[in-house]
């Protein structure tokens, strides 16, 4: 069962490097969220029941992002921008760092899961931030900025959760 806890899509970064339109980038972003959702969903039965809530929440949050990005792609204003080409950062390994095969072990604890999730959100946030910097001014740039903010907020929430669980023995302690 070892491979159960490994996230797939190692080719995502290469794909990202070659895709140049907003539509293609959004497709990768959606795929990234979907992969994460499926990864966490598959992880749920493999963790101890006392920390299952944590993985369930992560899966749910990724589903929400998946829905958000999918709706974004369908948005008429965004659609107009979808075909515009942008420069993707050439030496960016942030997405790839975490879409590579990651082994959390057979029975990861809450801290391992949180550290992984934090790092993953951090990578996504930086990726979108760089894309926003490279995009021309206008709705295209705004869209990537929006995505970066979304990931940053997600990461912030995870950091709060991390402190409450790890630094004090549990929420409310």
């Amino acid at each position, binding site marked *: 069962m070892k491979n159960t806890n490994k996230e797939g899509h190692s080719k995502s970064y290469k794909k990202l490097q070659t895709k140049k339109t907003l539509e293609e980038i959004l497709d990768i972003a959606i795929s990234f969220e979907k992969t994460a959702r499926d990864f966490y969903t598959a992880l749920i039965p493999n963790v101890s029941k*006392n920390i299952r*809530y944590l993985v369930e929440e992560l899966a749910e949050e990724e589903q929400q992002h998946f829905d958000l990005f999918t709706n974004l792609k369908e948005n008429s204003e965004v659609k107009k921008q979808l075909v515009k080409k942008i420069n993707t950062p050439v030496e960016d390994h942030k997405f790839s760092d975490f879409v590579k095969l990651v082994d959390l072990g057979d029975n990861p604890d809450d801290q391992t899961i949180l550290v992984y999730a934090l790092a993953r959100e951090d990578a996504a946030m930086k990726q979108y931030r760089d894309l926003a910097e490279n995009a021309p001014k206008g709705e295209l740039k705004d869209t990537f900025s929006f995505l970066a903010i979304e990931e940053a907020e997600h990461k912030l929430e995870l950091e709060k959760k991390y402190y409450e669980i*790890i*630094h004090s023995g549990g929420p409310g302690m």
Partner: protein
Amino acid sequence: MKKIDYRDKGSILNPLKNLQFFARKPITEKLEPRPASASYRGFHINDMDLCIGCSSCQKICDNAAITMVEVPSIKEDAAKGIRNLRPAIDYGRCCWCALCVDICPTSAIEMTREYVHTCDGDDTDSYFVFPSENGIHDLKFAKGWTKTEDSDLLDRIRRPMGEMKPEARINNFDEVVDGFTMEMAVEEASRCVDCGLCEDACPAHMHAPNYIRSIYEGNLEQAVEWMYETNPFSHVCGRVCTHICEDACSLGRVDENGVKNSQPIAIRWLKRFAMDNVSKATIKHIAQKGKTHIKSGKSVAVIGAGPAGLTAAFDLAKKGHRVTVYEALPKAGGMTRYGIPNYRLPEDRLDQDIEVITSVGVKINYNVRVGTDISMQQIHQENDAVILAIGLHNGRSTRISGSDNKAVVKAVDLLRMIPQGDKFIAPKSAVVIGGGNVAMDIARSMARLQMKQHNKVNVVVSALEALGNSFLADDEEVSESLEEGITILDSRGPKQCVISKGRLTGLETVNVLSIFDNKGRFSPKYDNSDLQYHPAEMVIEAIGQSADITLLGKDLIEELDWDRGRIKINDNGSTSVEWLWSAGDMVKGPDVINAVADGHRVANDIDSYLTR
């Protein structure tokens, strides 16, 4: 002067004399109230926000003119010492003595210069008044009698507690606090206004006003009797309780209108004094009170001999149940023994609490680790009910780079080694990561060991939180640590443990610009350019703890309901598994008095379950 006979009815013409007024035009003289003097004791006003509902005004009123009225719109907060009661005044009884004003701890109730109130015969209830900030007629009158430092009836300053000097305590584990003398204790007890806010706030609802009064009367046995009604860990709580009661004490309020410096009653130290001055034999005798001699025929197993488990065991044994406690370590007390150093809680005092508990018939099996030496299944089969109270004995790691080095250790593991008598060679230099009381405990223990072994203290505490409001450790822990030569670096985030050729050389930290967001949740902002290196032979992590639930086994873990990482319990400590209850730090977080309260709750529920 002519004497008038009492039978004299006067002239028959007398009534006619009144006729002289018949034709006169009536004259009405307008009567304006004269302005009252500056310190006039007129009608009361009460600042609803300053008033805490302590009822001191009601208690001091000799005429019983004050009734405390419940105001549902005011939110109660026992931990902060706020009740939703506010005084109503019966001016048919009030004699305007102003004692209510002079006793009020917050100066909420005052008097104005307003003194006129009339009504017709049907409206006499209007003399029963619920004063607000605007007074009886909702007219703003100037203040009359208000409290000054001279008229304040409260003794605001607590009797100072003596402590061993830093240079005398730094190379040993002797208790730091001296304790009260009888004279000091009586003086301190005399400050209490018997408002009972402390009892409301205490998780175990200890009868603090009663035992304080007993101490004041010099009746220490009676004081201990009051304590044992709610707390079999009174020696422990007399020393290391988080004293939520003192935070709620009405004397601890800053008097916004008058006295600025006001200190709560030293309830914890009074408890310590009474317990230390009553013999062990007498305490054992007191503890027996209420114990039934009728055996119930039911048996209960308690896993973990900490405050929660042993409080439950104490109650259940007194109710006639057979109680067996399973303890993995060689002695009882849980974190109070294996987490709190001797200089704060001497072992002999903890031993005495345990001895009293076992004297009511509690049996403790030491060095038995459930899950290894005996299974949960066997314990379940041999008992009618099981209590799980194993505490939080696993230390968390930062898992920063280099934290897997053998010279990076967890505070709870080190603190456990010290009272077990393990020979421990202290490092010449150590950095502690963390800012809570556990961090201070290990830092101060390490400083003592360093002084003994190396004649020099070199301990640095690196904490995320800034000293002041957000710092986790108690103020006294911080100040005493500083006195003992420990360096506290606040607002520092650990970046990495620096390893050179496999050996730890120190810790790198970065500056924390801010730690919480505007909602008070963790949201750190770092300044990575502000990097510091702290050389150390050992890095000690004291950031958090968790429960080791492996003893439950996979099946029971799966069968139980969980609540965000902790076993889900109802208000009585019952889990989703019928025969299992859980209590103490592992479900409520680390706190001795909360654990004691939890033990009582669980014992009550189990007793109801076994005797239904």
